[in-house]
């Protein structure tokens, strides 16, 4: 490595070790993923965070706690394979109904998606309560409104969704490439290839929610399709 000499001549191994300790402590302290810009505020400008995180990640590889990239940041999580040993201590999280899980999957893979689009895919009206449960879980959010007749609300997933399912970004959804390749993420056959997008900014065909009307005052009865 060309940089080696440079690094060795920096404050030195002690400095590097100190930076490693800080990164470790900051991520460890937090229950939610910490992104690199937040980490950078604790370190001198110009610190090579990628290298520090790489070091830390390999230090924790194979341990009972791992450093993982999730929801656009870094977090310590118990090792997946220890689930059986840990589960007894923790109460099971609430199970999602089949309809809710299916709706969540459709929103995740097709976002931004309107209620009408979800119903078109499932071939059935969305039961009252299905979207509520997802909104309440914090995994789904109202993004804005589609610029189309009726200005229906568009739904998308949140950072909490990525965190919960251990995904670094929405592009890491399982089987995404396969589905995309088969054209199954399109709203209609022959439509342009689509990919799910969960960027916070609204897209060209979306507009802000605007003042909450009576329609969506409670997330339950928001069907504006």
């Amino acid at each position, binding site marked *: 490595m060309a940089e080696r000499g440079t690094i060795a001549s920096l404050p030195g191994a002690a400095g590097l070790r100190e930076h490693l300790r800080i990164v470790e402590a*900051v991520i*460890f*302290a*937090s*229950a*939610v993923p910490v992104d690199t810009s937040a980490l950078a505020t604790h370190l001198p400008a110009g610190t090579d965070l990628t290298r520090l995180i790489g070091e830390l990640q390999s230090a924790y590889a194979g341990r009972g706690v791992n450093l993982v990239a999730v929801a656009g940041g870094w*977090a*310590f*999580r*118990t*090792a*997946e394979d220890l*689930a059986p040993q*840990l*589960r007894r201590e*923790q109460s*099971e*999280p609430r*199970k*999602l*109904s*089949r*309809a809710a*899980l*299916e709706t*969540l*999957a*459709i929103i*995740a*893979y097709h976002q931004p998606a309107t209620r009408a689009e979800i119903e078109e*895919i*499932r*071939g*059935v*009206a969305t039961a009252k309560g299905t979207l509520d449960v997802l909104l309440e879980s914090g995994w789904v959010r109202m993004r804005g409104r589609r610029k189309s007749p009726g200005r229906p609300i568009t739904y998308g997933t949140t950072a909490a969704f990525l*965190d*919960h*399912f*251990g*995904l670094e970004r929405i592009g890491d*959804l*399982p*089987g995404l490439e396969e*589905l995309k390749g*088969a054209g*199954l993420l399109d709203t*209609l*056959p022959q439509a342009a290839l689509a990919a799910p997008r969960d960027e916070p900014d609204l897209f060209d065909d979306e507009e802000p929610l605007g003042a909450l009307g009576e329609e969506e005052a409670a997330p339950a009865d928001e069907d504006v399709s």
Partner: protein
Amino acid sequence: MTATGDPDGAADGLLAGWEAPVRDGLAAREGDGAEALIVDVDGFEGPLDLLLALARTQKVDLARISILALVEQYLAFIGEARRLRLELAADYLVMAAWLTYLKSRLLLPPPPPEDGPSGEELADALAFRLRRLEAMRGAAARLAGLARLGRDVFPRGAPEPLATTTRPLWQASLYDLVAAYASQRQRHAVTTIRVSRRAVWSLVDARAILERLVGKVAAWTELDVLMASYLADPSERTTVRASTFTASLELAKEGLVDIAQTAAFAPIFVRARAAAEPADG
């Protein structure tokens, strides 16, 4: 309705614990074979779900499914349900009507092109919707199978909120600064105005001067004329007049001068009194 021999597939589809059995359920359904399906419609989530279940009985890839055969199966299912007088939701009937139309399109010679999509196109669209629904089912199952936070992996149980120190970021504009300077220079200017001492003729001064001047004049002389040289400064005129007049009254009382005035506001005359002469003013 339940595909027979499929205990946990469609029957509990509505709300109950779906996550774990989903893949098994799909597999079981596929393995179900062509046994008679009709028992009950409650297990299906709408006509598309029913169609998908029926399509699986064809034991072929959904891409190569016979839509015509599927339509026949669906219509047979609906016919059987009606014969048994089962309650059917309206959308199942709507789907049945549409499939009947599709069947006629597929069987009859193609209509003129302007008469809407052909039977094949409609069949393709239906096949696409079935494939897409199945794909999303699979996606949901894979999502559910991911290691989930709070079930399979756990975050730090006792997070340590990082302490925050607030550093004030002082703000002021150049206008604020300049206005503050100006306003307080302004105040300063007001508070330090020095009121110059007003020149006041004391009674003692006035008497001394009057004695000196009148002593030389025996004839009646107008007081203002007598004091003319002191009344030149307008700012002192009032005080000179008042003090001189008071002093003249004092001198008259002591018998040193005579004072005469012909009418109110008329000029006042004074003269030194001769020792023997009685006053006549």
